[in-house]
């Protein structure tokens, strides 16, 4: 039985064992095993040439990882918190995402950038942001978010196998929230597919990462109201698995999209736009978003007011069900 953070460490262990070109780079990932222990035991097993404690220098880490990727290595980078990725933003959007295109296929840009993200754990200021939309808006990247220990390992190994650069966002709130059986061997989950956690007939709830347990709880509460909700875990924010969400929306006719990030131009906006372009004829009510407010992520005393929760989701569903 592993927690999500343990399964992430395990995925990296398997990747390091399997391919000698895999390198881990990041701040405090060596002797310390990562501030969340996501690289626990790897420095001891693989040494400081492969599990590399770098200077505190996000642009330096990502930029030099691109050089390593061009030289045929497969870097797995840990950014300590997604909120701290901004110094590397230019490296990611201007270079990592474009090197294959700019060299017309000659130089590799294959790497995984891991970052813990999201709120709900009472973390200090600027440790809880959900800025996934910046990266979903950047062609050339893929963005993947797991929501369980099992899928975390399978998706991370899938991301490592992928020749494209992948931003792998790890919901902080789920790191240790539950344990489950995770095979110790190599396995992958497809990194471009959504996952249906619950089948339902009346409404589709779409979310990812730390929102999934909330959506499952909401679907449970809705059963009491005789409403059957389908829960879809996007998993891949870029690309968006249109087939799965379109099929579900056509079936239920109602969609609620839930994310922690601010509402405006969040990934929910993109999903809503695509639904309105492709399945509007099947919808019985407007598409609804439950999201963070358009304010900077609050200090933790107010994060409960900012974040989506079960009650907010249930209320949104009720609005759609009783929409005239």
């Amino acid at each position: 039985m592993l927690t999500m953070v343990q399964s992430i460490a395990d995925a990296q262990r398997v990747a390091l064992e399997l391919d000698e070109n895999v390198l881990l780079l990041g701040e405090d990932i060596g002797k310390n095993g990562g501030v969340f222990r996501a690289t626990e035991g790897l420095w001891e097993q693989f040494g400081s040439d492969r599990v590399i404690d770098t200077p505190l220098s996000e642009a330096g880490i990502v930029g030099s990882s691109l050089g390593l990727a061009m030289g045929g290595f497969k870097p797995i980078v840990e950014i300590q918190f997604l909120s701290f990725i901004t110094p590397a933003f230019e490296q990611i959007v201007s270079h990592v995402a474009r090197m294959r295109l700019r060299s017309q296929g000659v130089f590799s840009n294959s790497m995984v950038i891991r970052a813990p993200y999201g709120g709900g754990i009472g973390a200090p200021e600027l440790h809880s942001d959900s800025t996934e939309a910046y990266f979903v808006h950047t062609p050339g990247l893929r963005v993947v978010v797991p929501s369980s220990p099992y899928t975390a390992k399978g998706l991370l190994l899938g991301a490592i196998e992928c020749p494209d650069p992948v931003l792998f966002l790890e919901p902080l709130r789920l790191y240790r929230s539950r344990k489950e059986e995770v095979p110790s061997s190599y396995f992958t989950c497809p990194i471009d597919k959504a996952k249906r956690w619950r089948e339902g007939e009346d409404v589709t709830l779409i979310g990812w990462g730390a929102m999934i347990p909330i959506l499952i709880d909401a679907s449970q509460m809705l059963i009491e109201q005789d409403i059957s909700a389908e829960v879809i875990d996007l998993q891949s924010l870029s690309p968006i698995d249109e087939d799965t969400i379109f099929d579900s929306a056509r079936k239920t006719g109602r969609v609620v999209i839930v994310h922690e990030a601010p509402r405006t131009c969040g990934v929910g906006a993109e999903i809503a736009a695509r639904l309105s372009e492709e399945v509007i004829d099947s919808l019985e009510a407007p598409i609804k978003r439950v999201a963070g407010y358009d304010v900077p992520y609050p200090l933790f005393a107010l994060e409960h007011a900012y974040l989506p929760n079960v009650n907010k989701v249930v209320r949104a569903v009720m609005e759609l069900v009783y929409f005239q």
Partner: protein
Amino acid sequence: MLINHLLPCGALTNTGSAFWQMISQQEKIKLLHFMRFVRLFDRRMVLWQRQGKIGTYAPVEGQEASQIGSALALNKLDWIFPSYREQGVAFTLGIPTTSIIQYWSGHIEGCKPPIGYRYVPPTVPIATQLPHAVGAAWSIKKRKEDAIAIAYFGDGATSEGDFHEALNFAGVFHLPVLFFCQNNGYAISVPFEKQSATKSVVDRAKAYEIDEYQVDGNDILAVYDVIKNARKKKRPALIEAMTYRTGAHTTADDASRYRCEEEVRVWLNRDPLYRYEQLCIKEGLLDEEQLTKEDEKMAIHLDQSMKEVEQKTPNLPSGLFNHVYYQLPNWLEKQQEEASEDVNNGSVHC
């Protein structure tokens, strides 16, 4: 101390005489030919821009010694990370003229390095290629290759965070990377004294425990010597080549707004090509007849290259989508069909 082998008048210094004895006849002639070719090429590019044949262009003139002297000191396995003003480096290393023209004509195909080349597409943001060179040097070190990585940049780049992050990594991990700064005095219009409180770029090397060389960047012999020497050591080094772009920042810039004629005149008197030609005349290496023939050949080569670019460069919407991902994913396949449809229905003319 400024390393200087060749004075503006074309006379060798003491160190210059020693270096001149060490290099072969063939090397000496190569240096001359590339300087002449690059100047011709660069002037032709400016002309083509004026004629509307290529887009905005960043001229090299004045910096040929820095670019050719450094490029000729490199080896086949070395990784090269140029900025956007390194046509002299590209040309010297054998990047096809057609590729350089394609790039400045707005075609991404011009970024593609020939097979086996580790010549990276020019980096347009400032200083962001330095961390890439660090990573490439890391890969060289890990694979125990007989090579180095070199990053080209200007004096303005030394104010960017990526410059400092890269030098710090290189020092911490002892990587074989050369940071080659062409200090041409200006970052567009801002002079170096407003860029930095330190008197020179090399002053920063001490902070990162890496080697430093300051060299007369208009002296091709000194640059050639310094880079040969630095690359042999396989250690991180910051090299500052003191030079000057005699033209504008780009063809969209008017340098007279921020530089006085007198200053430009001073630097024209330190011209890198003139001084090397003077030396070659003195040493009996300059064969006028031969050079005229070479110039004519070069002019024909340039015209043919331009013709080839105009005739053969593809200009289809598929160029938007190729190589954005390793394989064209299905969601982009749909958008590619959309783009083709726009051509078919006449919304877009190709």
